[in-house]
């Protein structure tokens, strides 16, 4: 069933259009940086963007930081919001459920397909970032990449920590995916499910900036998104990374549970 869902997802042109659009922003930023030679100061603008003019191998990270706040979660919300509601709107949900596999397994298969989509998307953003970064900017061959803490990282360390970041960013998107998927079981409109997840995303991002909301900040789904920067401190700061992973796991378990409670007892008419 998972293979069926994956085939369905990756055979759709719009999946690839989404991924292409997602890559357009970092590429545009890279071209602008190259043309103007104007990088933001370290600590300003998207993370790591300041360093790419002198070290193009950091551009995959900058590309992730560029798409992380909005583009990537929107893409995830669109795909996840479509997962169940899209089938209902297209009138295919009844036929899917006619198979003996059961609704719980369908939900799990949909979630796995979304996770694979996020991973593929993040890897492509990083890969395109690497190609664009190394083609347009200088590449430092003698391990002299300066970590956030002022120490030097070898190219192997940069590569390893970039892989950790890719994994972390992928998992960070699971909360948004779970929200969109839960909403997708509540409505027959994929647009509504996507908008619901985006409302959660925007609400969370806004509350995170408010001092008055500091007590609930550790529970906001976007709270630890930027913690992939912590992989580039020396030593690596695991505290927020671990909390980010735990928080996403809680959102996935609770929302998948709610989606399951709702979907397995729902009357399917379309």
């Amino acid at each position, binding site marked *: 069933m998972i293979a069926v869902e994956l085939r369905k997802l990756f055979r759709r042109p719009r999946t690839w259009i989404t991924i292409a659009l997602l890559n357009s922003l970092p590429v545009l930023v890279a071209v602008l940086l190259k043309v103007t030679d104007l990088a933001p100061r370290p*600590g300003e603008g998207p993370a790591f963007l300041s360093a790419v003019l002198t070290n193009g191998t950091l551009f995959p990270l900058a590309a992730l930081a560029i798409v992380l706040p909005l583009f990537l979660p929107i893409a995830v919300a669109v795909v996840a919001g479509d997962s169940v509601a899209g089938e209902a709107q297209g009138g295919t949900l009844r036929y899917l459920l006619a198979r003996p596999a059961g609704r719980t397994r369908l939900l799990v298969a949909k979630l796995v397909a979304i996770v694979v989509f996020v991973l593929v998307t993040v890897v492509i953003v990083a890969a395109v970032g690497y190609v664009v970064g190394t083609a347009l900017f200088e590449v430092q061959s003698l391990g*002299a990449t300066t970590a956030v803490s002022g120490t030097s990282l070898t190219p192997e360390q940069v590569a390893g920590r970039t892989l950790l970041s890719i994994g972390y960013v992928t998992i960070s998107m699971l909360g948004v995916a779970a929200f969109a998927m839960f909403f997708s079981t509540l409505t027959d409109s994929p647009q509504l499910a996507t908008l619901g997840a985006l409302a959660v995303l925007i609400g969370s991002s806004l509350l995170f900036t408010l001092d008055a909301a500091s007590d609930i900040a550790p529970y906001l789904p976007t709270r630890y998104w930027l913690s992939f920067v912590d992989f580039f*401190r020396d030593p690596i700061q695991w505290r927020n990374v671990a909390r980010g992973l735990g928080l996403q796991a809680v959102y996935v378990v609770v929302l998948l549970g709610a989606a399951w409670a709702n979907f397995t007892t729902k009357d399917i008419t379309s």
Partner: protein
Amino acid sequence: MVRRGWRWAVVALGLAVLVALPAVFEALPADDASVAATDLRDRVLASDDVAFSGYAVSTGGLTLPVSDALTGVADLLSDQTSLRAWYRGAEDWRVDVVTTTGETGTHRDAAGTWTWDYADQRASRGDAPPLALPAAPDLLPSALGRRLLSEATDAELTRIDPARVAGVDAVGLRYTPAAEAASVSAVDIWADPTTGLPLRVVVRSADTSIPALDTRFLDLDLATPDAATTAFDPPPDADVTTDRDLTDVDLGRQERADLPATLAGLDRRTVEGVPDQIGAYGSGITVLAVSALPGRAAGSLRSQLAATPGAVVDDLGVRIAAGPLSLMVAGTSTRDGGSGTYLLAGTVTLDALATAAQQIQETDR
């Protein structure tokens, strides 16, 4: 309907358990240890050789009316600061101020400090002067706790309830300054009962229930960190500079220095690194510094203070308070035929500042 309900009940129960878990852990009572307040203070003061690494958060509740030159200090005392620390000894430690996308690290070695600023890609070398503006490493509970208790007398100390800090059942100590002039109503310190390491420090002022400063460890490991972690070599492409310390600051023409031996009930004292022109008074957490001000600086400072909400303006001068910190420009400009102008600053009440200003004027006559 029953069949539909049990699934939601399972989800609701799971959610309730997950939401309640942190609160339940927080509410678990901490164990106390039988130790006298004075013994606990001695243990805290002797804890500067306890190695540790940890993560601490400091929350300041003060709004300082300061100029652009001092925004760093103002931010430390008004914002939340996240600190990562590795401590091997009094002259071998590292404290990083961690922000979402950057950090500023201070590395101490036997000869001084390296400060690494990621935002500016700048490493600066300082020689650890005896007198310096407050910096982030001073806010670490271990450093702050030892500093605040260093002059606390036996009579000023009492034990308070224990608290769990960074997973440790920490024993509590309250330091209530005895001086009448004190604006700090109490300093509460929770320390590791075994090593005496301060784990949480709360500074309270009498006028508000919001602590002026609350700094605590969230994670703590008492293993000795690697020497490589605290050491620092400036990156090859970094901008390397030398710190300016307070002795480099031009204090302007010093008008006079004959200050009384006692002000507002606080005795004058000598403090290493403080120039003779500045009078230092008091002890422990109740201190007052007095300096003559050149006329030009006095005028601009006076108008700045007078424009601050809550400022008291009278014949003695202008005075303001931000939590337990108070500041006064006393006297009138000598050009107008008045007395000399003084800057008074410290952790004393506004009434104590007024008394001190009056006593200075009387000495002048």
